[in-house]
């Protein structure tokens, strides 16, 4: 039996939850998220001899998911819906009473631009440090921190009933 087989089956059990949630919050489609995760495992399997450190498996698989998601949109132009143009109950956003707080937060997360949402997902779902995220994304740690700042600032602004959803940098 291929020595990697047991390892990959173990990763499927241990990492699938984080990978699925990461994929879902990139593409926001459950079926597509499952396909992205499956495709990531297949691609990882094909390149299994290239992984030097098994402890880096999660980062490796999340990078593949992210690249597969990006590749998907290189070839397919999805019918994007402008979330800001969706009909809503009141002038700002659906009320907490009608949606529940979790759904309210989920709607807000979906409105964060992908550029800022991705490092946030890697941090909160993946548990990676700023340095690890920087390595995965190929940018500096400073850039990661800026993107995390903007992601949370946007989220906070969207969830604050008194705010207009805009993000203002600290003076």
């Amino acid at each position, binding site marked *: 039996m291929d020595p990697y087989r047991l390892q990959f089956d173990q990763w499927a*059990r241990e990492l699938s939850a984080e990978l699925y949630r990461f994929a879902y919050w990139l593409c926001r489609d459950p079926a597509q998220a499952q396909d992205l995760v499956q495709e990531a495992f297949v691609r990882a*399997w094909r390149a299994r001899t290239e992984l030097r450190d098994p402890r880096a498996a999660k980062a490796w698989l999340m990078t593949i998911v992210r690249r597969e998601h990006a590749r998907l949109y290189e070839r397919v132009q999805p019918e994007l819906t402008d979330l800001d143009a969706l009909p809503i109950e009141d002038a700002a956003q659906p009320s907490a009473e009608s949606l529940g707080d979790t759904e309210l937060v989920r709607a807000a997360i979906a409105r964060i631009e992908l550029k800022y949402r991705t490092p946030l997902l890697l941090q909160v779902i993946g548990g990676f440090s700023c340095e690890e995220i920087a390595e995965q994304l190929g940018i500096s740690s400073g850039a990661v921190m800026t993107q995390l700042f903007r992601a949370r600032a946007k989220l906070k602004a969207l969830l604050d009933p008194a705010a207009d959803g805009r993000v203002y940098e600290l003076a």
Partner: protein
Amino acid sequence: MSSPEAPRMNYAEFRRRLLIDPTDPALHAAAQGLSADSTERLSQAVQLEARLQQALALPLPADLAAGIEARLAQERDRVASGLRPRPWWMALAAALLLSLGLGLWWSQLRSLPMAELATAVVAHLAREPYALTRSSQVPPTLVRRMLIEHGLQPASEPVPVEYLQRCLVAGRWTVHMVMQEADGPVTVLYMPALPNAQRMDLRQDATAVRSLPYGDGALWLMAESNRDFDAVEQAWLRSAGQTVAGGWAAGAD
């Protein structure tokens, strides 16, 4: 020798880092010595982080890990069937052999019995049981892309499907789809490059099967019952821009 103290965090830096990583232990220590509202701000940031974590923790599909393992098994089978990449000289030798055998292969392909293919497509269902449980519609753009990649040119919007996968069936790459119909899921497999495709209705292993010529290959419909087959067939023919002269009589079986 004591290590030099880290520079104290000022209030602006504290507020900035609250939005970068509110779980940073340094923030908890810094909050004590800053302004009067720093502890409150830290508490609010931690609460927001908890809401964020809860929101990101979506329910998982029941077949998530099983689907991954099945997909990996499919890939291993594909490789084991001799399709894995080989050194260049082996690839050259394989190409020469392939060209010599192409004529024989093509004649065999033309005469491949549909009944044998029916057995293969029904057997394939057992390898992806989770395909029948999906409920979210696959984005039409993905369906269209997959069909185009397999030689079809849908004339209109693709038929809505809840599962889409490229699968190897009887040595052929097929488009495996599932439609959630009123009487249960209907599996639709498009198998291109099948010049001897013909129309059949049969039952195999408690599965109703219908095949029909479609594109340059065959469309296979499979379900527990054939009650929805006429409607599904009409939908696919309309999608291909073909008119329907009439379907089989779909009596309950």
